[in-house]
């Protein structure tokens, strides 16, 4: 049974429909990528999974349980954590405090402050600084750490590479093996197709609110992806 799956998921922003029936599944331990152009619905999809956008109850099942439309607090306690698009750290909180905020959900697991600081040593140096005073890449580390602090079973990463230089992106993704070491299931949403293919086992391509392509990362060709990405 898939760890996380959606069937015919639709989502709306007011009267505007953003998702038109997404079928998606995720098995435990996988790293799945979602790619697509701006506005394709990738972020909306992640937000539906985490309860930030309304969804029908049965459209999303986690470990067999329907979780669509539950409040975000419930969902994070069940074990799905989000690294939001644009980081969205708390400006009034320090690095340390932002990380502690993530531990609010208090699930048991291997992730704690020490392990995070071991993974991202630069954060320990800056632990008492206001989180938004850090560089973009460092902020991304904090955002990832904050999500990990709740010890999720599924980690959703929305556009980790947004606004970051290639060398920083490599640094961030270099931590991925550490994150998945104990079998963490991960979804990465990326505009950078190469990165997405490199790190994932499977890829979904979203185009205008629909899944336009789905397959194993190592078998999809560039032509297939381009066609699905741009809807040709």
């Amino acid at each position, binding site marked *: 049974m898939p760890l996380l799956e959606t069937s015919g998921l639709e989502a709306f922003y007011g009267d505007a429909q953003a998702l038109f029936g997404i079928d998606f599944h995720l098995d435990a331990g996988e790293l799945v990528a979602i790619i697509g152009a701006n506005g394709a619905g990738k972020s909306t999809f992640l937000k539906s999974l*985490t309860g*930030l956008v309304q969804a029908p109850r049965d459209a999303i099942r986690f470990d067999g349980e329907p979780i669509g439309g539950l*409040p*975000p*607090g419930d969902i*994070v*306690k069940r074990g799905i954590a*989000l690294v*939001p698009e644009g980081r*969205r750290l*708390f*400006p*009034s*909180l320090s690095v340390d*405090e932002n990380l*502690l*905020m*993530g531990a*609010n*959900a208090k699930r048991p697991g291997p992730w704690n402050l020490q392990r995070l600081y071991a993974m991202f040593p630069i954060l320990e140096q800056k632990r008492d600084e*206001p*989180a*938004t*005073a850090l560089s973009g890449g460092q902020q991304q580390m904090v955002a990832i750490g*904050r999500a990990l602090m*709740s010890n999720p079973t599924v980690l959703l990463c929305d556009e980790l590479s947004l606004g970051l230089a290639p060398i920083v992106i490599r640094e961030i993704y270099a931590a991925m093996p550490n994150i998945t070491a104990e079998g963490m299931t991960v979804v990465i949403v990326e505009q950078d197709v190469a990165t997405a293919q490199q790190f994932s086992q499977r890829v979904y391509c979203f185009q205008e609110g629909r899944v336009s392509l789905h397959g194993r990362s190592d078998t999809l060709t560039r032509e297939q992806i381009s066609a699905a990405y741009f809807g040709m």
Partner: protein
Amino acid sequence: MLETIIQGLLLGGLYCLFALGQSLMFGVMRLTNTAQGDFIVLGAFGAIALASLVALHPALITIMLLPVAFGVGYVLQRHVLNATLGHDPLPSLVVTFGLAIVIQNALLEVFSADPRSLDSDGLNTASLTIGADFAVGVLPLVIFTVALAATAALQWLFTRTALGRSFRAVSDDREIAELMGLNAKQVYALATGIAFMLILVAGVLQAMRTTVSPSDGPLLLLFAFEAVIIGGMGSFWGTFVGAMVLGITQQIGFRIDPGWGIWFGHLVFLAVLVVRPQGLFPKTRG
């Protein structure tokens, strides 16, 4: 001159207590409580009513009423004010305005328009001699100390506790705070509960220092508001300093002409607004 300044500082202590609750509520949920002054008066009358039933020291009366104040604030936020939060300032403004009218008139019906005060057990006339020929009232000194302690306590709460962290988080980004498992509605209610405890203390001290009547609310609100703006939003110590500045300014005004004190305070407030609109100690957001 020194005496005027010291009187001003002591007056500022009272204004700080008026303002802390407002600063807290605005800081956590961007809510402007236009009934702040009226709730202070309500607290004062509550204490006066209780005191007429049980002949106890005002400090004990306050302690007895603190949980009540917390409860009132919590319930009010949870079931009335939470519904008014959002981008538009109008709903919270209208609802708190409506509350102000209701409170003023309810108090008028129950207590009539006569000014009342709380028996302070002689505290309001006792004085302390400092130096050769200079005396300060004990009560103003007590008020100042309470204000100092309250400001320090709030600052500590905000920066060193998990609750304070959640206050800052929901204030920064409610959606993401909820993603972390925080119940924003609950957090807001806790903030207002604490704010109302401060309001009660302010009301009791005001009633001991001078008389209160049902229509006093609006003026107290303006003092609270001016203290917050002069000091700079987002900072409790800023509110403290702002209250000091307001108190001193008013005292100087009173010195020049008894009818000018409050007017002077208004003018200084407007001057700060013109020259340094962010206040003296604004909290900068990342």
